[in-house]
């Protein structure tokens, strides 16, 4: 019954939040993109790119915050490819994502090797330190769990509130959701669907950059091949599990974070089980959650369908510009 003891320590809950943070950032970003009708299975690749570029930025500028900026730019570069291929070229969005995920593994590992060689001596970069919020972190139990975290966790919580307000209480958010449900209706309402989708995909990229940064800059302060190891897919599962709402997706990531925290603690208990089984746990939790607790889920109606605008429209717009 040692296992039950785990749930009594505030350390477990604190670790849950810490481990959920990258998933949460990626899932929140993903919700934005998904809600405009662009299927984003490339969270994984963008997160990996974020992790690498965060490390690279922090290393080169010797500053963790600069690492964040570079991470966002790096992920947004991949996001831009995603946007161009799926929105303009109208390639199947699953295929685009598949390509990007593979590309990301290649790019990050290659640059890493080129810059730091193949020796196992890992170069460390500056990272973030936990930031205790005065007063609030002194609250018993809740204090250390919620207010003794890394800065990125606070950013994630702020993002949750912000994205929720934006999606459901702002007119731009209404337009964004309409793009995912019935882009034709939005088009005849006079709003540029293509623009909304582009911006959304780029914003998702930025969030995946932050999510990736959590992996490298929160204590580990280095990078290794495929460091994201499927977390982007778990984040995607969280979006589906959370029925495409920021709040739902967040709760789902906390569930998965708890699974991760639990396995780490169980590993330390030295049961006679290969540790791979423990490593499997967060993924197993994801799988079981999706299969058993989910039921049929319906995403935005226009998911994975490119918006086609009549070409002659652009032509006459140009003609008009020429005329003026």
């Amino acid at each position, binding site marked *: 019954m040692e296992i039950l003891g785990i749930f009594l320590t505030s350390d477990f809950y604190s670790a849950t939040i810490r481990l959920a943070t990258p998933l949460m950032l990626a899932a929140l970003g993903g919700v934005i993109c998904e809600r405009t009708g662009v299927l984003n299975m490339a969270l994984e690749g963008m997160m990996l790119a974020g992790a690498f570029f965060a490390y690279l930025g922090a290393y080169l500028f010797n500053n963790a915050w600069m690492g964040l900026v570079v991470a966002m730019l790096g992920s947004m570069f991949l996001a831009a490819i995603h946007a161009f291929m799926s929105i303009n070229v109208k390639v199947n969005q699953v295929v685009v994502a598949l390509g990007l995920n593979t590309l990301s593994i290649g790019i990050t590992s290659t640059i890493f090797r080129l810059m730091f060689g193949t020796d196992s001596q890992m170069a460390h970069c500056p990272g973030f330190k936990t930031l205790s919020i005065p007063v609030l972190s002194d609250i018993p139990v809740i204090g250390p769990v919620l207010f003794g975290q890394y800065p990125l966790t606070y950013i994630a919580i702020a993002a949750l509130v912000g994205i929720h307000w934006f999606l459901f*209480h*702002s*007119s*731009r*958010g*209404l*337009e964004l*959701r*309409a793009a995912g*449900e*019935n882009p*034709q*209706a*939005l*088009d*005849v*309402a*006079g*709003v540029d669907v293509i623009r909304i989708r582009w911006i959304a995909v780029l914003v998702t990229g930025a969030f995946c950059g932050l999510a990736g940064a959590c992996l490298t800059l929160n204590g580990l302060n280095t990078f290794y091949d495929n460091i994201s190891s499927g977390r982007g897919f778990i984040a995607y599962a969280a979006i589906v599990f959370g029925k495409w709402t920021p709040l739902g997706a967040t709760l789902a990531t906390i569930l998965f974070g708890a699974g991760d925290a639990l396995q780490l603690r169980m590993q330390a208990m030295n049961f006679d089980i290969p540790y791979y089984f423990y490593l499997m746990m967060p993924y197993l939790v994801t799988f079981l959650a999706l299969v058993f607790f989910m039921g049929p889920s319906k995403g935005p*109606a226009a998911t994975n369908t490119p918006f086609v605008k*009549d*070409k*002659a*429209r*652009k*032509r*006459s*717009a140009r*003609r*008009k510009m020429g*005329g003026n």
Partner: protein
Amino acid sequence: MEPVLRVHNITKRFGTNVANDHITFDLYPGEIHSLLGENGAGKSTLMNVIYGVYGADEGEIYLNGKRVDITSPKQAIDLGIGMVHQHFMLVPPFTVAENIMLGIQKELRLDIKKAEEKIAEASRKYDLRVDPHAKVSTLSVGQQQRVEILKVLYRGARILILDEPTAVLTPQETEELFVTLDRLKKDGVSIVFISHKLNEVMSISDRVSILRRGKIAGCIDDLSSCSREDLASAMVGRQVTLGVDKPDQKPGDDVLELDHISVRGEGKQDVVKDFTLKIRAGEIVGLAGVDGNGQSELIKGITGLLPISSGKLILQGQDMTGKPPRAFIDAGVGHIPEDRHKQGLVLSMSVKENLFLETIQDKPYTKAHVLQKKAINDKAKELMEYNDIRAASPEIPAGSLSGGNQQKIIVARVLDQGPKLLIAVHPTRGLDIGATEFVHRCILKAREEGCAVLLVSTELDEILELSDRIAVIYEGECMGIVSDKEATKEGIGLLMAGVRDQKADTATA
């Protein structure tokens, strides 16, 4: 008087296909100008050009005498042009207020309460009753259309384009729409009304322009001087006679007996509830109803494509409940499905292959699992000639044919098997007048040969013309069965809207 809207020499091409060929069209203030034409004549294309959804390849648009260049719907809206599309441009999971506010609010914060109040006010002003707080997915089609019109007016439109607005309405809802349009006209709104239904065009329009194969085939300023036949002839480009010739005929034995059947839809609920109906040999039973009231599920139940959850289905004295689709085909059920592209044909396969979709495993077309080329080719040729299927060769893909010829493939395939029961679902949807005549003749011929026919259609005129008896379906229930002698458009219309008692009242009155 100067026209509010004038399009001059508009040409729009899609690839090599010319959808609009140098079209000129005027709209005067406060008039209802109908645009009449068959499906594919280019009506919607022209309106989408005016509304900025499509860009024109040639030609100009003038608004109040001034040349404008409309490159997006936003611009059209700003210029006071509003369009209600044939397929509603609404976001189903959003509320009415959210749909109306979509795209018109500049400031970031969305005060939905305030918007709802303003919309409720506008709804009273134009007498378009809708609840701003209701979710669009829960509204009836007629209500959704009101939302669309309100949305357009709320944006300040003075020119209103309605693309086939009556296609989805019950006769009563159509009446209501016409009252609304008349009122808007008196307020000075100019309306373009697009339709292919002659009666409606005759009753609502001030002027009519006729579009045929992308060209303007005529503009009639004085409707009192012309008849329905004249309009139909102008629309088709040759002399047509309207109406069908249905000889009196005594029906034979029961062929299909539906005994209190229920059918489950995609969800867990029964979409068809406790439906009882008998169809006799040599009789056409029309099933009237607004689209989406369980017709599809009922048909799928009768053809074995969906399981029957309760009740009994008896075909020629044999209990067919729970049998697979193949058993229904073998038992002589012919099915002209509602969606010829998805259910009726394999579009990428050849005309010939499509003609044999149901019979290919039978002799003499297949012997010992080997296709008999000669038998197939001979039969295909015969069927194509007999049914006047116009294709360059039997080998070209079915998808490259016109809608009328595609439907003829299905009709040929089904009727050649000599069905005992023919189920024709929207058999003339989207067909031109010529093809419609052909399909109607085929159905009547099947009736003459003693086939029991179930005709499902949302076009009430079609049902009234062909049927011997008419059953009305509403929310999956049978609202009543009326013989063709007693049937009136109004009575059927009320049943279609789910009003049962009133019908009884009028029957006794």
